[in-house]
């Protein structure tokens, strides 16, 4: 996922006008859409989850996020690399890493509060196995250190650590782009292949639990996005773009959509026969290691999307698309709020009532809060920029 900012914010003042005009609203729109989908998918039992990405694809919102993240990271810092040099670009990247890290620690604190509360309330030996989720509370000194080292990843706190690691390693990719625009792609593909082949995975606490998103596998999608994004800087498109490639992408995306929709109907209505489920279903499950089926389907969908939705698409400039675009432009804060809101929504649905009216209320409240925060941040950004008097320092990317 991407928390990167509008190109204009990083580019030097002289370049601002140019950067603004060529801004690709598709990146903001789909990033915003994924934020909504991640919120929806994190509220358990949410009927709206049937309307999200994974209903008609093997992949889900996480893939969209990582890809766009890689794309805009290369766009923003690739430009900075060209204009300001490697040192400043790296410093800017690490400034962003720091922000993500602080956000991760913030979410961790909320998680600890939630677990402590839940476990103290439960009071029931029937749940002795479930209570082990709180065993880290018996050694809080170790748990805190592990959380600070990104080695403790309880449920719902798994995405930020991946981004922090990917971004922290990104200066290496930037150096690679300077040598050859496909060098990072090649190295990354090799690492992905070996990771799948050898089953490499970094370990976390509790011992033996793998990272939910294995960074050694997911870096490949990030670098694919970055290679495409860097093409905006270098002006040379490095991947195939011929007619055959577009047709192949559409055929793959269409085929996977057909199978996925078929499965979704089957899970809802058992007598409906699932096509190829015995053969394919388990191969789409491995989100941790970014299963090849998920990756191929996502790339096909991305290619198909770009064929049909051009940068000058008029819908992206309408009032309907605006809330998603603004959310996409302030993705770090909106993402964190979305996770907190999903946990709250979970709590409300479980404790009180989980019928459709309540689900609708939770969804509407969640969307409203996310869009509200995004508009507030947008207003603050513009108002600070236009304000007279002491200059308000803004971060390089937000």
């Amino acid at each position, binding site marked *: 996922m991407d928390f990167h900012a509008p190109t204009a914010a990083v580019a030097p003042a002289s370049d601002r006008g140019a950067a603004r005009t060529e801004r690709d609203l598709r990146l903001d729109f789909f990033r915003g859409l994924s934020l909504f989908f991640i919120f929806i998918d994190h509220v*358990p*039992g949410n009927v709206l989850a049937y309307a999200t990405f994974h209903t008609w694809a093997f992949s889900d919102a996480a893939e969209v996020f990582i890809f766009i993240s890689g794309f805009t990271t290369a766009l923003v810092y690739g430009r900075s690399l060209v204009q300001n040099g490697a040192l400043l670009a790296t410093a800017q990247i690490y400034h962003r890493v720091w922000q993500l890290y602080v956000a991760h620690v913030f979410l961790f604190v909320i*998680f600890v509060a*939630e*677990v402590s509360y*839940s*476990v103290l*309330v*439960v*009071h*029931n*030996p*029937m*749940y*002795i*196995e*479930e*209570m*082990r*989720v*709180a065993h880290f509370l018996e050694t809080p000194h170790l748990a805190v250190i592990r959380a600070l080292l990104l080695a403790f*990843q*309880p*449920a*719902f706190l798994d995405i930020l650590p991946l981004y922090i690691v990917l971004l922290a390693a990104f200066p290496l990719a930037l150096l690679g782009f300077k040598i050859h625009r496909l060098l990072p792609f090649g190295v990354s593909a090799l690492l992905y292949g070996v990771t799948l082949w050898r089953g490499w995975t970094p370990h976390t606490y*509790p011992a*033996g*639990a*793998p990272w*939910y998103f294995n960074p050694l596998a997911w870096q490949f999608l990030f670098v694919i996005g970055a290679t495409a994004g860097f093409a905006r800087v270098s002006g040379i498109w490095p991947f195939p773009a011929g007619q055959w490639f577009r047709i192949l992408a559409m055929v793959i995306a269409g085929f996977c959509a057909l199978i996925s929709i078929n499965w979704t109907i*089957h*899970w809802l209505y*058992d007598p409906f026969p*699932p096509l190829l*489920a*015995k053969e394919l*279903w*388990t191969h789409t*499950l*491995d*989100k*941790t290691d970014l*299963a090849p089926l998920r990756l191929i389907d996502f790339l096909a969908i991305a290619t198909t999307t770009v064929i049909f939705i051009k940068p000058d698409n008029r819908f992206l400039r309408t009032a309907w698309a605006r809330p998603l675009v603004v959310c996409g432009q302030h993705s770090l804060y909106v993402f964190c709020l979305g996770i907190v809101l999903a*946990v709250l929504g*979970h*709590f409300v649905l*479980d*404790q009180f009532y989980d*019928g459709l009216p309540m689900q609708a209320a939770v969804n509407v409240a969640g969307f409203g809060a996310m869009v509200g925060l995004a508009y507030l941040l947008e207003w603050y950004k513009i108002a600070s920029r236009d304000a007279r008097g002491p200059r308000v320092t803004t971060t390089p990317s937000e």
Partner: protein
Amino acid sequence: MMRPLAVLVVVAVVASPLAVPAHAQDAVGRCAVPPDLIAAGPGLPGVAKRFQDHQPLIIVAIGGASTAGVAAGSPAKAYPQRLQQALERRHPDVPITVINKATPRQTARDMVGRFAADVLAAKPNLVIWETGTVDAVRAVDVQDFAGALEDGIAALRAGGAAVMLVDMQYNPSLASVIDFGRYLDALHRTADLDDVYLFHRYDIMRYWSDNGRFELVDVPRGKQAVLAGEIYRCLGETMADAIDRAAR
């Protein structure tokens, strides 16, 4: 949500043609659940044949802490033992043995490793496999979890046993800190694809909790064991309903 009285009527109506009228009473009262929470299939023809031929029926239950039943204070109050009592009452002419092989804190993969020695050695006609909690708590890779389920189902079937999968316990408080959704989905879908009978413990307990039959959280210390025993008894009764319905 249905009113309790309506539920009683529905359960009575649905359960009455099942067999002997006396059976219908067992699932009524505090334990009653709407009929759509107890699947009718896939069937258990092997078990049905045992009932028809009045042949001895051997069931092995394997699972974690909730199958071991420690929380109720005595293994005799665990749901497998309650299931045996309920089945014996319903089928007085069939010798029924339920063997409890639960061991706390094991993942699905750990349990599969015990199948040959602990489960198949008893030559069961039916294996009740309760799993998923430890996998969800430890955040085991979902694909590995689904793979372990498939391997386990294949091993049990190769050993000549029918399989009934049992999903996780419902807990209104911990559900928001443990990511059960993905593991429930994986378990339900594996059961579906492999044609395995699934006992919907999560939904059943959730129904009891939502309808105020049992308070699952904030239980005073003195009442915990009694409550656990009562829930396990209801699970045993409901599971007997499920077996009767699938073994027709």
